[in-house]
């Protein structure tokens, strides 16, 4: 025997109508008996619309079509999307330098190796492309550097891990290779209102005029929980409620810039000689 729910059309198989419809929760009085043919006539090669074979076939075809459609869209739009992301990175670099204008006119880029020597086989575009996979670029021993054409300030791209996901940013140094000119940070998935505050101008405003060297020794920037001491040139306040992200940010700055220290020291002595 089969019973059909008059409200939602659910079909129950058994000797009596169910007490409650599992789909729409109405009681047994809403069920009516339907005469089930002893063996439902098979329609087509897959059977009827509700046969298992039809359902499996239907889902498979649907998934393949949707997957192909989405893959095609993603591929065809990727170029534009990457251009947008690149534009955002360019803006962030200029923002950390505190300048505006057309990126190509005001910023030059190149790649240095772990000893701080410029690698002439890479050009400015390669340096920009490396920003898409900065950890990979670091691992390959290639370090992209950006320089403002007007006043020779350097921008060091930094990358690390926050609490949940990647964090990255740009640290612009003044020509003494020690004092921070400005910073921009971004994140992929930190907690809104807590860790995500690293991406706000309010947080960035603490960084200018801090220094990353103590004498000749590289110390980086400490992000201090409870607030940096007054007059401490190497520390900023941590984020309230964003301690893990703050620690991640501190490590990001320390580890990333550490790779550039040979380059910075060379640039520093060059500047002294000039």
């Amino acid at each position: 025997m089969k019973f059909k729910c008059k409200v939602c059309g659910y079909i129950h198989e058994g000797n009596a109508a169910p007490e409650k419809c599992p789909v729409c929760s109405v009681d047994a009085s809403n069920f009516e008996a339907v005469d089930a043919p002893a063996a439902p006539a098979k329609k087509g090669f897959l059977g009827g619309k509700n046969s298992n074979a039809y359902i499996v076939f239907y889902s498979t075809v649907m998934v393949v079509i949707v997957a192909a459609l989405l893959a095609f869209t993603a591929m065809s739009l990727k170029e534009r999307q990457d251009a947008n992301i690149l534009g955002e990175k360019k803006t962030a670099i200029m923002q950390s330098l505190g300048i505006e204008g057309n990126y190509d006119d005001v910023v030059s880029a190149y790649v240095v190796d772990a000893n701080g020597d410029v690698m002439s086989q890479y050009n400015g575009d390669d340096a920009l492309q490396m920003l898409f996979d900065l950890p990979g670029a670091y691992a390959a021993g290639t370090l992209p550097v950006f320089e403002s054409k007007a006043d020779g300030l350097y921008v060091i791209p930094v990358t690390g891990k926050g609490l949940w996901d990647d964090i990255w940013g740009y640290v612009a140094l003044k020509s003494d290779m020690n004092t921070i000119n400005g910073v921009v940070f971004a994140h992929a998935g930190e907690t809104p209102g807590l860790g995500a505050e690293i991406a706000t101008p309010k947080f960035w405003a603490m960084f200018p005029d801090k220094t990353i060297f103590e004498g000749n020794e590289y110390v980086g920037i400490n992000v201090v929980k409870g607030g940096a001491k007054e007059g401490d040139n190497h520390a900023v306040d941590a984020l309230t409620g964003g301690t893990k992200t703050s620690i991640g940010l501190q490590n990001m700055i320390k580890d990333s810039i550490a790779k550039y220290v040979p380059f910075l020291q060379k640039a520093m002595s060059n500047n002294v000689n000039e």
Partner: protein
Amino acid sequence: MSNEVKEALFSAKNMQSLTNPFSRNNPVIVQILGICSALAVTVQLKPSVVMALSVTVVTGLSNLILSLLRKGIPDRIRIIVQLVVIAALVILVDQVLKAFVYDVSKQLSVYVGLIITNCIVMGRVEAFALSNKPWPSLLDGIGNGLGYGVILVIIGFVRELFGSGTLWGVRIIPESFYEAGYANNGLMLFPPMALILVGIIIWVHRSKNTDLQEKE
């Protein structure tokens, strides 16, 4: 179906599918659906408009596609089929936004992806598209998307104007006002104010449409 009288494309009944959601059957202020995103993305006018258009595209196309498929969809997996179609459309919209209006797409962040869970979309598919022909379904989807969008745009307009003194990023309230002591309403920038605005819209709407009021 051959003896069925062919209905005109813009017959009164079809037009009702399109226009009813604007006022009498508005998804946000009558059915109280999609409130979450209405609070989240309406700080400024531009994301509100983009969100409104995105939802309209998704409701319209999902209604159309599922109405075309409705006779072939196995009943037992119809919700899954609906979800797949809606999710695919939302991903398409998200990809297009990322490619063409990147800054807005960053502002909308997760809320574009969350259109999938917007009750309006699934609700219209289940309630209308699966039992109606493609053309009325398309109209119904567009109508509901726009009915949702209209509320978003109203809230976005008020919140940006009084919260930031701008519209579409352009300064509207002149500097002289600020010098004379006018200040932006900071509460406007927070979601609770959007909820209050929705409440005010519902109040005005109900006092105009007395038949919507519950009998005492």
